[in-house]
């Protein structure tokens, strides 16, 4: 458990936590949202390893976000940990239910059905005028162990929380990848029928992965809801899902840490593009995606793997 990788990963996260107060405030907020989204991407990586790319992760993202927002609005629950736990359970349940249907499909149809389900949620939210329809509504500030951070402290508190949860998620997911179920992802992608001949149910396996991905996406959505302070139906729209898939390609399926790096870089690049190219930033983003696909098809994670290979080659 205390492998070199995990220790170094932990150190990187701890370094981030310590460095936070020294970093510019806008960067901290940007990183908070980036890491919240990275959790969704992590879930996508789990599924992509098995050869599946859902185009509707926004369904779980929105579920988690609206769960905490609704609780904040209609109940007195404010404790951030309790709210996150409820969001995780809620989105996990949705993933569990939806999985019975979704796990039977593959490839493009998996992607399209997942998209359809997220758009149905979108439609329901838009139609619900009491929840503000497309305007959405405000997310009440959360408390940390009963204490409400004041003003400037709130951003920092959210950042610490998000980084801590990211570290936990990264750790758990890399543990999962080392288990049999996790390792089976690649064989499932390559040739399902042989796995079934081994006596394992591929549908069940995928169902489980869906629940994992859905829970991660729900927690990411909840964290994003706290960070932005607002939820709206657009969180369930297909372009939101598209954004997550975009980052997943940037990250690559190979590494857990790459999900966080890629998400952060994406937010940063996007902000820079909007800053310097106010009318044409989409060209810039599209080009970045294109270049990544053409020159780094395995994503950012593969950069590190190349270092590793070179390192190994040098060893006598």
């Amino acid at each position, binding site marked *: 458990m205390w492998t*070199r990788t995990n220790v170094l990963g932990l150190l990187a996260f701890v370094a981030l936590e310590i460095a936070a107060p020294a970093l510019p405030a*806008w960067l901290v907020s940007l990183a908070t949202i980036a890491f919240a989204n990275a959790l969704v991407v992590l879930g996508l990586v789990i599924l992509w390893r098995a050869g599946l790319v859902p185009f509707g992760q926004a369904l779980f993202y929105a579920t988690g976000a609206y769960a905490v927002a609704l609780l904040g609005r209609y109940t007195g629950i404010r404790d951030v940990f309790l709210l996150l736990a409820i969001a995780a359970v809620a989105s996990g349940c949705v993933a569990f239910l939806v999985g019975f249907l979704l796990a039977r499909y593959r490839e493009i149809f998996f992607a399209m059905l997942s998209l359809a389900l997220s758009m149905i949620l979108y439609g329901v939210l838009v139609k619900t005028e009491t929840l503000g329809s*497309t305007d959405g509504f*405000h997310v009440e500030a959360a408390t940390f162990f009963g204490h409400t951070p004041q003003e400037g402290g709130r951003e920092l508190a959210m950042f610490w929380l998000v980084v801590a949860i990211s570290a936990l998620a990264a750790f758990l997911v890399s543990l999962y990848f080392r288990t049999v179920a996790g390792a089976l992802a690649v064989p499932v992608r390559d040739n399902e029928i042989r796995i079934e001949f081994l006596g394992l149910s591929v549908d069940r396996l995928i169902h489980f992965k869906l629940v994992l991905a859905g829970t991660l996406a729900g927690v990411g959505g909840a964290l994003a809801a706290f960070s932005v302070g607002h939820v709206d139906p657009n969180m369930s729209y297909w372009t939101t899902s598209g954004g997550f898939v975009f980052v997943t390609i940037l990250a690559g399926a190979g590494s857990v840490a790459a999900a966080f790096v890629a998400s952060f870089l994406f937010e940063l690049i996007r902000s820079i593009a909007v800053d310097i190219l106010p009318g044409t930033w989409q060209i810039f983003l599209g080009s970045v995606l294109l270049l990544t696909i053409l020159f780094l098809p395995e994503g950012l994670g593969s950069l590190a793997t190349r270092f590793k290979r070179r390192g190994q080659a040098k060893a006598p």
Partner: protein
Amino acid sequence: MTYRRKWAQSALVALAALLAAGTAPAPAQQPAAPPQPIKIGIVTFLTGPAAAPFGVPGRNAAEVLIEALNKGKVPAPYNKVGIGGAKIEVKYVDEAGATANTVTEYRNLVQRDKMDVVLGYVSSGNCLAIAPVADELKTLTVFDVCGTPRIFEEKPRKYIFRVNPTATMDNVAAAHYVLRKIKNLRLYSGINQNYAWGQDSWRDFKLALGVLAPKAKSDKVLFPKLFSGEYGAEISTLLTSKSQVIHSSFFDGDLEAFIYQSTARGLPKRIPIIFTTGETSIFRLAKTITEGTMIGARGPHAMLAHETALTKWFRQVYSDRFSQLPVYPSYHMAQSLFGLKAAWEKAQAKKGGARPTTDEVIAAFEGLEFPTPSTTVRMLNGKGHQGVTDTAYGTFHYNKKTRQPELVDVVYYPAGCVNPPPDVDSVTWIKGGMKGAKCK
């Protein structure tokens, strides 16, 4: 996984963070003698379907006004250079993107770019999301186009101002105008976009009619998807209805598509339509719009403006630069900018010419009354943070002699007639019979 790989990844993260910190612009050097410029971040739709109707006309107006202001060429009472003698430095940011991105960009404007004021926002969803952040970051923020009453009705805001009235005004006035044009209204229908703006517009219109004409009933209530663009089924439904009027808060793209498609099938000839935000299409669709169509401009703007020297100047300077007349989003931007200027200069005067703090500008802005190219604005509602104005509706007429479209039978509704009184929320006010409305 090896040591080297993990190290490389952590290094990447650190490098990215350093790069980002490094790219943050250095704080501007203060010039010694001339007053420190005032930095305004203007956020509006520069891409996407809302760019053509709102974002670009708004941005154009801002460009032309800020240029004139910095040269001191604006007519009185706005003839001081820039704002209070200090030049305006403006940065334009695209509003397009998810709410999370909009909030991120707002934080970037305030924390990274050190803007003094942020102005803009077309989408009500964005306005609602930004409002608490503005209070958190203690930055003066002026909302421009977004029309939801929720901004100030949900809770008081210290740092937010909205010069332009809410959508409630448009739809209550529409109800008045419809009743004036159609005697003995019994049945009406509506086609509005299926999102907050459309839903709220219909609700306010219907509630207002409920008070002013209790015997009238709604028949077909249609909510096609936003940006759907294809209204065949909706038009058929309306054609088979016996309604006497149709209400619509469609804007630009959808508005124009609906006008083309409904005119081709003779709908507006059979049932008159009232477009609460139809002004933007009067010139572009002059040959298509049916006589008798009722048109609003979200306030007395463009053709409906009260003509003053300021009005003439604005129209001239805008059309000289952009070869087309300004439309109501341009007037909205003008109102917001002039309101800001008026408040700032008032606060400055109170301080004997020294640069006011944000709190001092806020104090001056609250309850302020000031002229704009359209009309006079009074910051009456939302504890002095929400502006109210009068409004107007007119009926479309194509003048064959001059070959120009016109609005005839124009009726002005005073601010007190169509805006809720201070500190009563709009829905409660309408439902309660619109008490206190002064319509003469």
